[in-house]
C-alpha cells in the first residue's frame, strides 16, 4: 500500500565510483573488486550516468515547481513589503481565519478517526465478503471527484434538498426547512466524507499488520475482549491513527472547494482567504504570505509527525489520490 516506505537510502550495490569516463564500459556500474575504482573518486563523487538520467526530471521539477514556490516567497516579501506578514499577524480578520481553520481541521480529524476506527476494525477483522463490501464502498467514495462529492452534499443538504424534503414531505416532522447549507455543519459533513477514506486506509493498514497471535495470547491469559482491545489492539494501532490523523489534518488545512460551496460567509478558512486576497482584494502579496505560512505549517506538521511514524507511511496512505 505504501510504496513510499520502500524508498532506499542509497542503491544497494557497493560498486566503485566509476563515471562513464572512468574505466571500460563493462567495468562501470556493477560491483567490481576492491581497488578497482580510483580512491579519489570515492571521496569526491563525480556526476555519473544515472545522474545524467535524472537530469531531465530534476530540471523539470525545479523549473516547474521549485521556481514557482520561490517566486511565491519573493512575492510575499516584496509586494509591497514584508509588512504582508505583520498584517496577517495583527489583523483580527486574519487571526480569526487562522483560528477557525485550525479548529475546523482539528474537529474534522477527530471525527475522521472516531468514525474511521470502527470501519477499519470491521474491515480488518471480518470475513472476505464483508471486507470486500467495505473496501468497494470506500474506493467508490475515494475515487469520486472532490467537486462531485461536494456537489452531492449540496443536493442533499439544500433547503429544498433531500434531507429537508424527507423531513417535511415524507415524515411530516417540519414545516419550514432546516437551514443546513452554508453553515459550519455542512462543511464538517462534506469534509469528513471526503477525508474519511484516508483515515480508514491508514488505520486498516496498521490493524492488518498486528500479529493475531498477540491478541490470542492476551485472551488465553484470561483477558476479556474489551480488555484485549484496550490494552493490546488499541496501543498497537496508534501509529496508524497518527499517520491517518496527520494526513487528514494537513489536507483539511488547505481546503478551498468544499468550504466555499457548503460553508457560510461567516467562516472564511485559510484556503478561501488566500483566494479572496488574489481574486477579490487584488493583494497577491498578502495572499502569497498566507500561502507561505500555510505551506510552512503543513511541512512542520508533517516533519514533526515523520519523527514518530515515518513520512512514507503518512504520504503512502494517499495511494495516488490527492485532494
Amino acid at each position, binding site marked *: 500500500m505504501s*510504496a513510499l516506505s520502500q524508498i532506499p537510502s542509497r542503491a544497494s550495490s557497493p560498486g566503485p565510483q566509476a563515471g562513464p569516463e572512468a574505466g571500460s564500459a563493462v567495468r562501470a556500474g556493477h560491483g567490481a573488486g576492491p581497488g578497482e575504482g580510483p580512491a579519489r573518486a570515492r571521496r569526491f563523487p563525480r556526476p555519473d550516468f*544515472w545522474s545524467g538520467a535524472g537530469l531531465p526530471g530534476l530540471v523539470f521539477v525545479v523549473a516547474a515547481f521549485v521556481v514557482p514556490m520561490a517566486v511565491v516567497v519573493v512575492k510575499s516579501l516584496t509586494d509591497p513589503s514584508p509588512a504582508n506578514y505583520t498584517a496577517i499577524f495583527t489583523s483580527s480578520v486574519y487571526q480569526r481565519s487562522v483560528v477557525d481553520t485550525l479548529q475546523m481541521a482539528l474537529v474534522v480529524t477527530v471525527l475522521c478517526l472516531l468514525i474511521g476506527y470502527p470501519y477499519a476494525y470491521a474491515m480488518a477483522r471480518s470475513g472476505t465478503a464483508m471486507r470486500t463490501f467495505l473496501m468497494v*464502498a470506500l474506493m467508490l467514495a475515494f475515487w469520486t471527484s472532490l467537486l462531485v462529492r461536494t456537489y452531492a452534499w449540496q443536493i442533499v443538504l439544500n433547503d429544498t434538498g433531500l434531507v429537508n424534503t424527507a423531513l417535511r414531505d415524507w415524515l411530516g416532522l417540519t414545516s419550514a426547512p432546516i437551514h443546513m447549507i452554508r453553515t459550519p455543519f455542512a462543511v464538517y459533513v462534506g469534509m469528513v466524507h471526503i477525508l474519511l477514506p484516508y483515515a480508514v486506509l491508514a488505520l486498516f493498514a496498521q490493524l492488518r499488520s498486528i500479529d493475531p497471535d498477540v491478541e490470542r495470547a492476551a485472551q488465553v491469559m484470561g483477558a476479556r475482549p474489551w480488555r484485549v482491545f484496550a490494552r493490546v489492539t488499541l496501543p498497537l494501532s496508534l501509529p496508524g491513527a497518527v499517520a491517518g490523523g496527520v494526513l487528514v489534518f494537513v489536507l483539511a488545512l488547505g481546503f478551498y472547494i468544499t468550504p466555499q460551496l457548503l460553508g457560510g460567509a461567516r467562516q472564511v478558512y485559510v484556503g478561501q482567504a488566500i483566494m479572496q486576497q488574489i481574486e477579490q482584494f487584488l493583494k497577491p502579496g498578502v495572499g502569497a504570505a498566507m500561502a507561505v505560512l500555510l505551506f510552512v505549517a503543513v511541512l512542520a506538521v508533517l516533519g514533526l509527525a515523520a519523527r514518530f511514524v515515518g513520512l512514507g507511511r503518512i504520504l503512502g496512505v494517499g495511494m495516488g489520490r490527492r485532494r
Partner: protein
Amino acid sequence: MRAGLGVRLFACLIALLFVTPTLIVAATSVTSGSMVTFPPKGFSLRWFQEVLTDPEWLTALGNSAQVGLLAAVLAMAAGTSLAFAAARSRFLPPALVTGLAVLPMTVPLVVAGIGFYLVYIRVGLSGNVLSLGIAHAVLGLPFVFVNVLAALTGVDRRVEEAARVSGATEAVTLLRITLPLVAPAALVGGVLAFVSSWDEVVVALFLNTPQFRTLPVVMWSQVRSGVEPSISAVATLITLVSLLMAALVLVGPAVVKKVRRRT
C-alpha cells in the same frame, strides 16, 4: 479477534453513507424533469444528450482530456527520470532527489496554484493546454516517482549486467533493458497522474481564462449558482472516467499477473 456485530453494523451504515452521495448525483442526472429532485421524475438520458451536444461542455471535455494526457506523459517522463537518480546515482544525494520528487505531494493546491499563476503568466504560459498540463504534471509526478522507485528496487541488476557484458552501452541498457522493466510501474503512475489532473479544480481555476476552461472549472462555475440536472450529468461523466481509471490501476496489474501466469 472478529469485529463485534455492533461494529460491523456501524461500518455498513458508514459504507452506505460513503456511496449514497455519488449514487444520488447519478440518479438526479437521469431525470426526465428539468429540476434536481429526489426521487427523480421518470428516466431519460436527455441531460447527457444536452451536455454532449453543448459546445461549451464539449470544448471543456476536450481541454480536460488533453491536459490530462499531457500531464500524464510529462509526469511519467520526469518521475521516471527522478526515480533513476534517486535509486542509482552516486553523485546526487538520494534524500535531495526524493525530497524534490515528493514535495509536490505535500503542497496545498491553493499554494501550488498561486505559484503557477505568478510564474506561468509571466513567461507567457497561461490559458492553454501546455500551462495547465505542466502544472498538473508537477502534481502527478510523485505518483510515478514512487511507483518506479519501488519497481527499480525489484529489478534484477544481473539482467542489466548481462547486457553490459554483451557490449551494450549504459544508454542502450537503460533504453532496452531497464526502461521496459519499469514501464508498467510508470504507466500506473501515469494513470494516477491523469486522474488527479482530470478532476482537479483549484490549480485549474488559477490558470483558466474565459477561452480555456476544463470540465471541473465549468462545473465549478455552474455549481456556484445552484444545482441542475445537466451539472449532475457532467458530474456523473467525470466520476465514471475517474472510477474506470481507478479500477484499471487497482485491479489491472493483478489481472495481468494472473493472465501471464496462465500462459
